[in-house]
């Protein structure tokens, strides 16, 4: 540092008198326009849309369903409330640890359905942690488009699926990001993208090829880059292996939505072992800031699901999941009543059976935390669900018929 003034800061002199036709910006814009038009027409990058730059929950479901050759007559849809109840219940029922990345069914529920309705009862669990009503609609739509119509859909909902202050708008969940690669979101885009900027962003994904295909291109680039770096800097064979767990520890914020099989491991419950985790802090944040617009958007998406099932001949059952009293106390004032009324009215409008299991029938001993059922709670939940289905004559007949058809189909297939 000296006292002498440094030379004036260098600013390149602007040459003057450039005409529009000579503008680099305009020429570049024209070239880009041309490239974009050609790319939109040719769609040069062809990839499997069920693949994502990293493995999220949806890609595991899709891979599992692609692998399973048998059909399904009952589908289950919901958030982590049903994922965890099913995982714990099935691990205990099957007496073995389960990785939910390759267990997308409800084995204990299948057993109950078979007992009660006979025939062949196969289930598929389309539930995913964090699933909101908007994600649920896309999940069902994507599944039906790619695989098949289930005879019965059990859709388990909870207040969090309609209000979550940690999500700024329906279109910004990680599940939505994955699902928009699998099915068109056009019919709910106006609900999912709630600000002009997010709508513009969505529009750009459709209008600008490179922007819309950025995930596909990233995957291609990653594959190419992987090949090059493996050749240029091979991993030393005698070095320590830097695995998924190391990466989670070293880079906890990297790819938060990535799901590794080890994250989804459920062990059979040990008799007599009890634990209860108080996750009120998390839910205080989720329920903290009620956003009327987002709630309305999620309700509208929920109604889209009801309408979709109606149009596609899918028998639908709505189940309101049980949650603890401690959790309900965190809900915004008057929300519970409004939420339940909405469920009842919607189900009434579309003539959909509605089972409210949040009626005091579950106690704290059946919960792992303030919202998720433990293995015993999961078993009780499915017992009660099977009971409720069998008490509804129309549904019972439907399931008996479905079981018979599935059995006939499977016998036919085996010949």
């Amino acid at each position, binding site marked *: *540092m000296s006292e002498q003034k440094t030379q004036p800061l260098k*600013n390149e002199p602007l040459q003057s008198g*450039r005409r529009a036709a000579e503008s680099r*910006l305009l020429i*570049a814009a024209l*070239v880009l326009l041309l490239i974009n038009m050609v790319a939109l027409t040719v769609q040069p990058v062809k990839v499997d849309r069920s693949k994502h730059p990293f493995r999220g929950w949806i890609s595991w479901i899709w891979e599992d369903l692609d692998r399973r050759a048998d059909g399904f007559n009952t589908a289950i849809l919901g958030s982590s409330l049903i994922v965890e109840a099913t995982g714990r219940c099935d691990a205990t029922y099957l007496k073995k640890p389960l990785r939910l990345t390759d267990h997308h069914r409800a084995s204990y529920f299948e057993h109950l359905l078979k007992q009660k309705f006979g025939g062949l009862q196969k289930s598929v669990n389309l539930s995913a942690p964090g699933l909101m009503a908007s994600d649920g609609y896309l999940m069902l739509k994507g599944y039906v488009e790619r695989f098949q119509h289930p005879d019965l859909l059990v859709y388990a909902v909870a207040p969090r699926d309609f209000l979550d202050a940690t999500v700024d708008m329906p279109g910004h969940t990680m599940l939505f990001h994955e699902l928009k690669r699998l099915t068109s979101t056009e019919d709910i885009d106006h609900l999912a993208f709630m600000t002009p900027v997010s709508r513009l962003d969505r529009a750009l994904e459709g209008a*600008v090829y490179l922007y819309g295909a950025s995930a596909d291109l990233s995957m291609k680039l990653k594959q190419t880059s992987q090949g090059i770096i493996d050749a240029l800097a091979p991993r030393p064979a005698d*070095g320590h292996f830097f695995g998924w767990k190391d990466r989670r520890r070293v*880079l906890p914020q990297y790819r938060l939505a990535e799901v590794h099989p080890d994250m989804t491991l459920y062990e059979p419950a040990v008799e007599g072992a009890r634990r209860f985790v108080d996750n009120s802090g998390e839910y205080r944040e989720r329920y903290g800031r009620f956003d009327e617009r987002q709630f309305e958007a999620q309700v509208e998406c929920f109604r889209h699901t009801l309408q979709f099932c109606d149009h596609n001949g899918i028998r639908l059952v709505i189940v309101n999941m049980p949650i603890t009293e401690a959790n309900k106390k965190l809900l915004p004032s008057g929300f519970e009543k409004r939420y339940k009324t909405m469920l009842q009215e919607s189900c009434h409008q579309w003539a959909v059976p509605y089972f409210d299991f949040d009626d005091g029938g579950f106690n704290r001993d059946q919960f792992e935390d303030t919202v998720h059922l433990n293995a015993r709670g999961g078993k009780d939940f499915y017992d009660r669900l099977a009971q409720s289905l069998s008490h509804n004559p129309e549904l019972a007949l439907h399931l008996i018929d479905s079981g018979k058809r599935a059995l006939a189909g499977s016998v036919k297939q085996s010949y």
Partner: protein
Amino acid sequence: MLFNSLEYLIFLPVVVLLFWAVPHKFRVTLLLVASYVFYMSWRAEYGLMLLGLTAVNFLMGLKLADAAEKARKLWLACIIAVNLVTLGYFKYTLFGISVAKDGLKLLGVNWHSPALDIILPLGISFFVFEFIHYAVEVYRGRPAVRSFPDFALFASFFATQIAGPIKRYEDFVPQLNVPAKFKWEYADDGVQLILLGLFKKVVIADNLAIVAQAGFSNIYDFSALDLWLITYAFAFQIFFDFAGYTDIARGSAMLFGYKVPINFNLPYLAANVSDFWHRWHISLSTWLRDYLFIPLGGSRFGRWFTYRNLFLTMLLGGLWHGAATHFLVWGAYQGVLLILHKEYLRLLERVGLRPAQGQPGASPSEALREKPKVLGRIYHVVSVVVTFHLVCIGWVLFRADNLRIAWTMIRKLIVDAPVELWNFSAAKLTVLQIRDPLIFPWLLYLIPGLMLVHVLTAWLNKKEFYLKPPLFLQVACMVLLVCVLAVFSSESSPKFIYFQF
């Protein structure tokens, strides 16, 4: 509103179109409104704080300009005090409380400090420095700005509001009064700079940030050689992050026909620490020189006084970067390096390898170049390499979460690395084991590549290539940059590092 957001991609063209559409007399007002919209999109109430501080500085500046000789010093002191108290309250209160608490704890006093929730207003360190510069220049006899909109825009111009470059009012304000007409050159050069800045930020800095985050938070998981690579990664991350921001700021200003100063001049090609500070964050280092080092006495009162001033200037410069002990130590480290460099020059003078101060060829590499050419070149390259590594060690102090981590890391870099290098085994390099994110193994090629880009840019600058680049190349660059950014910008990009200062 971040520069690397879709909001800015909408905001900027709208403001540019309006700016060139309205008559000249409305342009300053338009930019002023746009700048406050930009600032208040973060926190509306802090926009009012900025407006209030601007009004106070404007009125006091006028008083200073019109005051009698005797009262001028008092007005200057008042203006500086208002600005420093504001900066001190928002930026250093919590730090001061924690230091006081620790100090009292050492004395056995358990003080229950007040729980304050102070949020640092974005860009406060930058606009406060601009206000102080203005007051000092008016005190020194430059004319005051008599138009409030002009003055308010000088302080709040959205392109430079959050992280500089720190403008000089005598350069910026006269540009506001030129009734300029739109030129395609503004659009061409401005957009090119913005695209280049976004590329530096989104493609280079954000990827290197993953490495720095992993490395600095988990130093025990990496070998000393890994840690050198991680330190290099951070050195380039902070450079491309801040240089990217500056390019976007300069490009945005250029769209209105305004020029704002450059902030970087290939800093990692500096041949000594003093040279580094002439190339790194230039608008800050010149500010520190003009408004801290020189007022402290500069180098007017002998060797030890100069060293004291240098040390204090860098120490406070370090504290400006953040209210934390490691920033203070980083500043002290830079001060010590500058003093050692001066001592080194004195030593060269004494052994006759360098002409006495003020004579031509005073830098050692120049002096050696006079001798055999190859020797001079080698000396220069070694100087650049040594300076780069000294700067990198400084970056460890800068980036580490606390001094304990910094010290452990520096010890590994200096003590363990030579041993590891001597017994080199690729199997010990963790960066080669990590295949996701792929940026880790790529570091082996990326770091030398980025250094080569520095060398190549220096060569192109020497050939004055930037004065008349071929049309084809400019268009191809723009097209390529847009394509790359379209692919890489869809995932959310973190904010710029220098926003925290």
